[in-house]
């Protein structure tokens, strides 16, 4: 049962991720990315991490993508306003993407596929467990990342204020 669910979700994830790249209209790219986030949240649920799944949806699908959509709507992108790309950038991007592909294939060949079983019935992804882990074993990284967010917020406020002068 969970294998079929996983396969369905995985195929949907890949299709939606490809659609993000291949969509002509940036609006559709953003919408496909939202679908992609949903399928990833589905993977979390399969791994019994409900809390992570929901937080993933709230933060990425609910908040960040709304901002993306906001920007795309305001920019009103279409074919005429698209900046012309020179051949040099096209060749450079093709080469770098190809190199990355080679690295991916090499690493996949090198990895050994061991036995893997889904951690059924574990409560690892529940709110209590995640909270306990965060505030005991991972307290320092947690606090440091909050400082990082704070500095990012202050930085953006500073940038916004500068423009006004």
């Amino acid at each position: 049962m969970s294998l079929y669910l996983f396969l369905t979700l995985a195929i949907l994830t890949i299709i939606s991720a490809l659609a993000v790249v291949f969509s002509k209209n940036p609006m559709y790219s953003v919408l496909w990315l939202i679908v992609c986030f949903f399928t990833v949240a589905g993977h979390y649920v399969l791994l019994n991490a409900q809390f992570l799944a929901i937080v993933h949806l709230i933060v990425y699908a609910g908040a960040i993508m709304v901002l993306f959509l906001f920007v795309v709507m305001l920019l009103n992108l279409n074919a005429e306003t698209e900046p012309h790309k020179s051949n040099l950038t096209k060749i450079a991007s093709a080469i770098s993407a190809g190199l990355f592909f080679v690295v991916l294939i090499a690493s996949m060949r090198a990895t050994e596929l061991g036995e893997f079983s889904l951690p059924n019935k574990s409560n690892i992804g529940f709110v209590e467990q995640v909270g306990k882990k965060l505030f005991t074993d991972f307290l320092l990284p947690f606090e440091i990342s909050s400082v990082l967010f704070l500095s990012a917020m202050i930085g953006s406020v500073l940038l916004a204020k500068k423009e006004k002068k």
Partner: protein
Amino acid sequence: MDWALLLDKTILIVIIFAVSLGIAAYSTYGERKIAAFLQDRVGPDRAGPFGLLQPIADGVKMFTKEEIIPNASDKFLFIIGPCIFMMTALMTSAIIPWGKSFNFGGHEFGLQVADLNVGLLYLFAVVSIGGYGIMIGGWASNNKFALLGALRAASQMISYELAMGMSIVALLLINNSLSLREIVDGQAGDGNVWNVVRQPVGFLIFLICAFAECNRAPFDLPESESELVGGYHTEFSSMKLGLFLFAEYINMFISSAIIASLYFGGYHFPGIDSLDLPQNIAAIVSVAVLFAKILFFIFFFMWVRWTLPRFRYDQLMNLGWKVLIPLSIINVLVTGAWITFFK
């Protein structure tokens, strides 16, 4: 898979959908009647006794009107926008505990579709996705007024979701659970009071944010008729417009249910346990109590709409970012300190 459970849940979901749609339909009637009452008019009274058939007449009108899809619009997104808005409006009903469980000859029939242990967060996820319906619909219309309405809706939702989330955090500190059923049960029994007594400031913030999230007056800037024609649904006609308007009433019904569950004891009332009723009758009473609270809040939503004028846009943003968010953070701090030092 347990087939009895599946059957139970299917029946329950069908009932809840039917009730939500029915209440939404009669909310439109109620809105006109209350507006009439507040403005000293009669209101709709032609269709049936007291105009009670008015929602049906409205429904037939919506269905039979001409379907217009603008030429320059993005047709697929234009159709899917109202669908998403309606779907998310119905989805939130899954986590609300509607009453105590029935017992039919030894078979328990619970009145909650899913008792998720992340129930409240699920609510936030679904609500934030509901905004896409408006944004997609407004953008796909290819109309400047619709786009402005959609942008207003999106920024309003983001701004007020933050304060709403912070007011919920304070509630969670007290109740120690994200499950709605546990929060409701935590407000009943000896020594427990309704959360509105324990969290008055949080309740006020949550209520204001609920108005903003439902796009109800005085926060109905996304569709303000006086400046944006019809806002995000300017180009919509026929049943697609109907879906937008209808989903708004369902949202109002669901948020009333959530306000009642989170802050007003849900399906409990003081002394419900001391009556010592048989289980099935207790279940019916509990559902009736919850619906009485819900109807009061729906009335409250309408009362406010026909009493207060609309905000200006900068006032809306100031209220959200400079008043509600700091206030809700202070509320969390005070609640935390109170729990640490006095409990």
